[in-house]
């Protein structure tokens, strides 16, 4: 993969680094993830050009960390415990006013402690609000989204949850969606 050059960035921020995807993985997981990266998949890449400058865009965030409001219905980890190829395919809405103390994490493949200490480590809701206050983006969207990222059967996630997220993104006039795996 070739890395792009960014004309708007200062020289000390120019990407001269090639990241090592496997620095924090070892053993069998490394073997599996390398294999998966090479499996054939979709080749048709969709493209929606950015229609406005960043400073005019409403931005929403999507996290695969399985984050739900404590006041909301939690994700169900027993679905994956019963069928280890699959996970709860639902999603949750996280308003831009959410703070770390308001959330619970359901993800059986990572240590959730960092997210529980600071939601912004994986879902930077407060940082996005700061960029909006500084005028660097147009607005932080009223709603952000989370789902459980481990699944080998993504069909229901893609067929049921993603279209529902898309409807709400449209209603809230979102231009940019940033997705964040864990």
């Amino acid at each position, binding site marked *: 993969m070739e890395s792009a050059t*960014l004309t708007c*960035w200062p020289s000390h921020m120019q990407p001269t680094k090639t*990241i090592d995807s496997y620095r924090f993985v070892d053993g069998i997981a490394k073997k599996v993830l390398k*294999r998966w990266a090479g499996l054939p998949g979709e080749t048709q890449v969709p*493209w929606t050009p950015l229609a406005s400058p960043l400073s005019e865009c409403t931005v929403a965030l999507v996290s695969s960390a399985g984050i739900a409001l404590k006041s909301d219905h939690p994700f169900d980890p027993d679905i994956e415990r019963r069928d280890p*190829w699959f996970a709860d395919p639902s999603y949750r809405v996280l308003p831009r006013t959410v703070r770390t103390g308001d959330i619970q994490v359901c993800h059986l493949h990572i240590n959730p402690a960092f997210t529980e200490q600071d939601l912004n480590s994986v879902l930077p809701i407060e940082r996005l609000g700061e960029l909006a206050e500084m005028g660097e983006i147009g607005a932080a969207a009223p709603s952000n989204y989370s789902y459980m990222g481990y699944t080998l059967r993504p069909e229901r996630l893609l067929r049921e949850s993603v279209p529902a997220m898309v409807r709400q993104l449209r209603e809230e006039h979102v231009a940019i969606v940033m997705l*964040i*795996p864990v």
Partner: protein
Amino acid sequence: MCCWSVGLVQREIEAAGFSTISLSMMPELTASAAAPRIAAIEHPFGMTLGRPGDVAGQLEVLRATLRAMEELAQPSAVIHLPFEWTSTEKLALGPTEPPPIAKYLVSHPWAFSRFLNRTPPANTG
């Protein structure tokens, strides 16, 4: 594993008419799902934006990712962000108990090739 499903979800959202970017620790895996724009970062799992409490670091990563939106003008564009994870501290990145698939493969070792090839058995979910 999240880096694959994020690419699949991203692809659908982009196709629905939104400009999308993922911040991925495994850009090759995310790209294999035909994700349109990727900012690659060498951060540990569970701390994609940075350490808990590192407000300045999280803000810089978020800002760099969103600025890349304005620069990445071609489908399948990938930028490798220059952030360095310098700590050599041993981090507990994994879950407290093995994930269900790991336990399953210990008792069903013949299913490993299914896992490796991402060909799960027929849908029961």
